[in-house]
């Protein structure tokens, strides 16, 4: 097995003491931000990007840290979901149904334990998938030309738009806004300034860290200010966080099914953890038939979605790393980080940067092991963090965001820009415009434009080249199909008890 020997050498990278430390730190931060309201993985990653750049750590170490936050947040998410019925992101909404029902029955500890183990199963199985499928996809994608890449990016946009929950027109407007932001600054080919409004600061373009922190973090601050309740209910821990092996074994197949569903859904752009957890939940309901107590505290209602959304998070790394095309807001930010670190994800990544890819894959095993450790015996520590009052937490996070934004270009102008994006983000939330497509558009915009121009230039100005190859046509077809998919999906999942269609493409 070729992949296996690569993976073993990857452990050589992942088990360096510094990288072990980063993996542990990353998943710790991830658990934290996944659990607490108002931060979220996308902000945490955006805030830490300038820090990793400044510290001068090697690319694989930076990635181990950032990706650790990414999958770690999927664990932390379930803590506040189960105990407080406050899902941090959309992908944990389904877990709330049975997870919180178990807490009310006094079985909260058991629910947390199941969720931790399910997350671990989903996480580790999907890394196996990552290791096996990424090389396959890469060897296939090596034939992609600029026209195919352009079509692929259109597919990513349409998939994210259609699953973002809001109306397609709104998602389209958000995408267009993001792409427009990407064109701000000097045009890379002709060096003509575009949309700079005479501002020297804008000639370099918008930095995605500034935009992301503004859109997500600052607008979140405004939104939290709007909510009148200043504090939050203290979490009451009920029962030991433990589960008997027999109960665990009873959920074994559920976790495996959830992992497979989650992984497959995760690989598709746009869908991500939200759809995965919904599908896993309804699949479990179907399998259990009349024996289930779904909606009233069935452990399988926790195990299925939790394994699924962790598997989906890891599956989503495949298109990011092997195609260079992310499918969600958070993975778009990760792409921005990679580009900033001087790594170009794509089919050649596995050959050119084997240490990076295999080191990352191996570190994810390390990180998941840490997560299991943190979430079983140490969950009490995290639960206590839920009682940090908001007046301390939110200003603290804001200050971190300031430093991060300032550090990008050591420019105070960016702080003003960030605030403006905060206001824009707040208004967009108010008017139901999804935010994730903006970030995706901003990060993918330059790549999209480059590939479009290259494709047209190669064909001598003939636009039909975009629809010329079978791969491109298939991708355009997929893009169209993804726009239809939510309708079908809603029909399939609308028998879930008391759940609305998933919203927010933020997972």
């Amino acid at each position, binding site marked *: 097995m070729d992949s296996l020997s690569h993976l073993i050498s990857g452990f050589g990278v992942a088990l360096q003491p510094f990288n072990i430390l980063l993996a542990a730190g990353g998943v710790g931060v991830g658990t934290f931000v996944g659990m607490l309201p108002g931060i979220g993985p996308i902000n945490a990653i955006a805030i830490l990007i300038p820090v990793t750049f400044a510290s001068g750590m090697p690319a694989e170490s930076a990635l181990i840290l950032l990706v650790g936050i990414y999958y770690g947040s999927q664990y932390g998410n379930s803590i506040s979901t189960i105990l407080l019925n406050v899902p941090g992101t959309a992908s944990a909404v389904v877990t709330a149904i049975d997870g919180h029902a178990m807490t009310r029955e006094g079985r909260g500890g058991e629910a947390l334990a199941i969720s931790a183990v399910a997350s671990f199963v989903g996480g580790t199985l999907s890394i196996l998938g990552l290791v096996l499928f990424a090389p396959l996809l890469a060897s296939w994608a090596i034939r992609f030309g600029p026209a195919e890449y352009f079509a692929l990016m259109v597919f990513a946009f349409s998939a994210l738009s259609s699953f973002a929950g809001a109306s397609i027109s709104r998602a389209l407007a958000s995408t267009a806004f993001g792409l427009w932001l990407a064109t701000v600054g000097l045009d890379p*080919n002709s060096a003509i300034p575009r949309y700079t409004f005479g501002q020297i600061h804008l000639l370099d373009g918008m930095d995605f860290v500034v935009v992301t922190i503004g859109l997500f973090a600052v607008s979140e601050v405004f939104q939290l200010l709007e909510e009148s309740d200043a504090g939050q209910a203290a979490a009451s821990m009920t029962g030991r966080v433990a589960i008997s092996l027999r109960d665990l074994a009873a959920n074994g197949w559920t976790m495996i099914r959830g992992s497979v569903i989650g992984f497959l859904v995760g690989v598709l752009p746009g869908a991500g953890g939200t759809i995965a957890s919904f599908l896993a939940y309804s699949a479990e309901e179907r399998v259990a038939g009349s024996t289930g107590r779904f909606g009233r505290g069935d452990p399988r209602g926790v195990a299925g979605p939790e394994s699924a959304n962790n598997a989906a998070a890891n599956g989503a790394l495949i298109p990011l790393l092997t195609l260079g095309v992310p499918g969600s807001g958070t993975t778009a930010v990760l792409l921005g980080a990679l580009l900033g670190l001087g790594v170009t994800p794509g089919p050649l990544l596995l050959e050119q940067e084997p240490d990076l890819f295999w080191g990352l894959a191996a570190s994810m095993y390390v990180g998941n092991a840490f997560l299991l450790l943190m979430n079983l015996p140490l969950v009490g520590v995290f639960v206590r963090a839920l009682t940090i009052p908001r007046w301390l937490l939110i*200003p603290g996070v804001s200050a971190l965001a300031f430093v991060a934004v300032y550090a990008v270009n050591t420019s*105070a102008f960016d702080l003003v820009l960030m605030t403006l994006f905060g206001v824009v983000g707040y208004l967009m939330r108010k008017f*139901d415009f999804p935010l994730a497509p903006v970030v995706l558009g901003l990060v993918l915009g330059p790549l999209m434009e480059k590939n479009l121009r290259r494709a047209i230039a190669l064909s001598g100005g003939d636009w039909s080249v975009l629809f010329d190859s079978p791969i491109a046509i298939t991708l355009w077809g997929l893009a169209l199909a993804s726009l239809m998919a939510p309708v079908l999906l809603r029909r399939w999942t609308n028998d879930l008890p008391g759940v609305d269609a998933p919203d927010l493409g933020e997972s």
Partner: protein
Amino acid sequence: MLVLTGVATALEAWTFNVAFMTDPVGPKALPLLVAGALVVAGARLMARPRSTVQLPDTGPARRMMLAAAAFISYGLVLPWLGFFLSTTIVVGVLGVLFGGPRVGSAVAGAGLSAVLWLLFVMVLSLPLPIGALWIR
């Protein structure tokens, strides 16, 4: 409510008007596609206006304005007052806005500024502004 949707679409109309005024052939392609997408999205939203948007009450709205003002002035003031003082003030103000005690918020602001300064300047050697006011 119609007016509000109108405002949103008008904002968009403004954006795509700008987009049409773009440069020569090469750099124009993507902005034009984007403008097209905005026109389609705007028209579709215009055709099917969505119902009410809940505006915040005056109390929260005032707090939000104050927070926005604090953010903006932080960016403006940072080069002069320096990192430590600016951050202390803005964290303190935000703390109070979130209903924290005044003294506690101020202490938290100062403490946090100090910790961040140590972390970023000492450990990561990221330059944070000392403040032009103190150097002269």
